[in-house]
């Protein structure tokens, strides 16, 4: 059966049954839980899902809950959409968020950099006035966009409870 749904009114999303890693990942997302694989050997977390551990080649892993909080590491702000589902939704923001968990490990420039769009707390794409506020350093928390029964995407919204630095933005 796998997973399937239509996102943003026109983009087909599918995960095949035999794609065990992504089935497990999105299975947690559907319950609005963020889980990542932890290596059975070195215990390091990795993102996105992989078959083996990128650090020690171990095949065995287990899924652990991970706090969906972090800061924007970098971003792109799309003004000319390519995919039909994103036409009429510009500007939208592509974010890479450094999770607080495992940041700077195992080397200082590494992090679990989790992709997503800037969204409202309900998981819908953020309006232009919110896009204009976010930049490198903005504190974010994870939310979920429900696509279909059993299929949700992790997304990001501004963490209103966290102290916010002045973010770095593209110089206008």
């Amino acid at each position, binding site marked *: 059966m796998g997973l399937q749904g239509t996102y943003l009114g026109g983009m087909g999303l599918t995960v095949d049954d035999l794609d065990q890693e992504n089935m497990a990942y999105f299975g947690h997302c559907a319950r609005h839980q963020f889980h990542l694989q932890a290596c059975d050997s070195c215990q390091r977390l990795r993102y996105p899902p992989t078959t083996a551990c990128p650090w020690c080649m171990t095949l065995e892993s287990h899924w652990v809950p991970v706090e969906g909080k972090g800061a924007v*590491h*970098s971003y792109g702000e799309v003004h*000319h959409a*390519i995919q*039909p589902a994103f036409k009429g939704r510009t500007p939208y923001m592509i974010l890479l968020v450094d999770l607080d968990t495992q940041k700077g490990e195992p080397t200082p420039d590494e992090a679990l950099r989790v992709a997503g*769009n800037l969204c409202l707390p309900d998981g819908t794409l953020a309006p232009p006035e919110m896009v204009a506020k976010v930049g490198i350093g903005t504190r974010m928390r994870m939310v979920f966009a429900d696509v279909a029964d059993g299929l949700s*995407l992790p997304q990001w919204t501004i963490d209103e409870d966290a102290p916010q630095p002045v973010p770095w933005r593209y110089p206008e």
Partner: protein
Amino acid sequence: MAGSEIDAGTPRHLADKYAIVGVGETPYLRGAGSGRTTRAMGTDAVRSAILDAGMKASDIDGMLSYSNNDSTPAPFIAGDLGIRLNFYMDVYGGGSSTEALVGIAIGVIEAGMCKAVVIFRSMNGYSQVRIGGTGARSAVPVNGDALHSRAYGWQAAGQMFAPSFMRHMHDYGTRPEQVAMVKVIHSEHASNNPKALYRKRVTVDEVLNSRFIVKPLHLLDCCVETDNANAIIVTTADRARDLRHHPVLIRSVVGRCCKPRADMHYQHGPISRVAGYYAKDILWPNAGVGPEDIDITGSYDAFTFTTMLQLEEYGFCKKGEGPEYVSDGTIRLGGKRPNNTSGGHLCEGYTHGIAMVIENVRQLRHDADDSCPIGPDGKRQHTYDYREGGCRQVKDAELTANLGWAMPGTGSAMVMRRG
């Protein structure tokens, strides 16, 4: 320019043992497009390269091509031209493929599998499969691993690379007007290239006032989509000496060298670092020269930023000094080390990198195809006057470096020298 101290007596990893002996291309077209198939264009370009080399179809027995499943496989091109192949391979991939395939060509000739390899890329990148990612490709369902990127509207090349570019601005204080100079200078070069699609010189203001595609990229920070085919021929330096042109020798190649986590390079940092950081340690030792010896660079300009990031990583300036390097006149014709003297992908046309190799082959022949008058020997009498519509030959060019780009995490490179 002054010849550098090249230790050609002790070739390392086949340096100077192989050459590029023929180049060919079709016109760079938009608007109505090419109006013909990738087979027709590919055949045209390969034939032109064979004739340019002064070879016959029977002299070619190897063929390599690369594409994103948007081209015609080698057997059809070979069949068209009466070439009997002892070796061929059609490889998946776009930018960074040219230099990698040159390395493969050297390897298969060295292994005795064939004697001369033609490499081609044929694409209707404007009229059929849009290289910018619009059209049919943008609407296909998103499956599996791609849910971690495409589902977020993170699909086209500019969208995929934007976080690297933005982080470079953050880390090093890079200014938009500095990066825009890459387009400005490449447009100057294109104005001296009669076959370039965009020959009009543009200003920094025109770049910065063009609409945003994906911040930090304006429309004029992005390359053009065109229909075209290009071909180059690789064979031994010994064979090259009997052929039509002054030999252009291959000193060193790097093919699709990657950062860690090639599946998603952003996991490893710093993300303003690109693959050249690793590739340079293969390129320069094998070439026996360093960046200071290079007369002309061909740093891939899918975007203004890609040119700058690679020039930094390969050591043409210090990391973080790229914005100054690309905007202080160094990379301009007449400057210390011009980049993409054809106008590159920003202006000449988009070929996934192979045209930038062709340009440097012509530069090393001292036979850039500009508007200078052709002399009795059939070669242009270069004036070295780089004003608009004039010369684009670099005086006494001896060494070039091509820096190919697939994405921030993957790149290729090649050093060539005048034989």
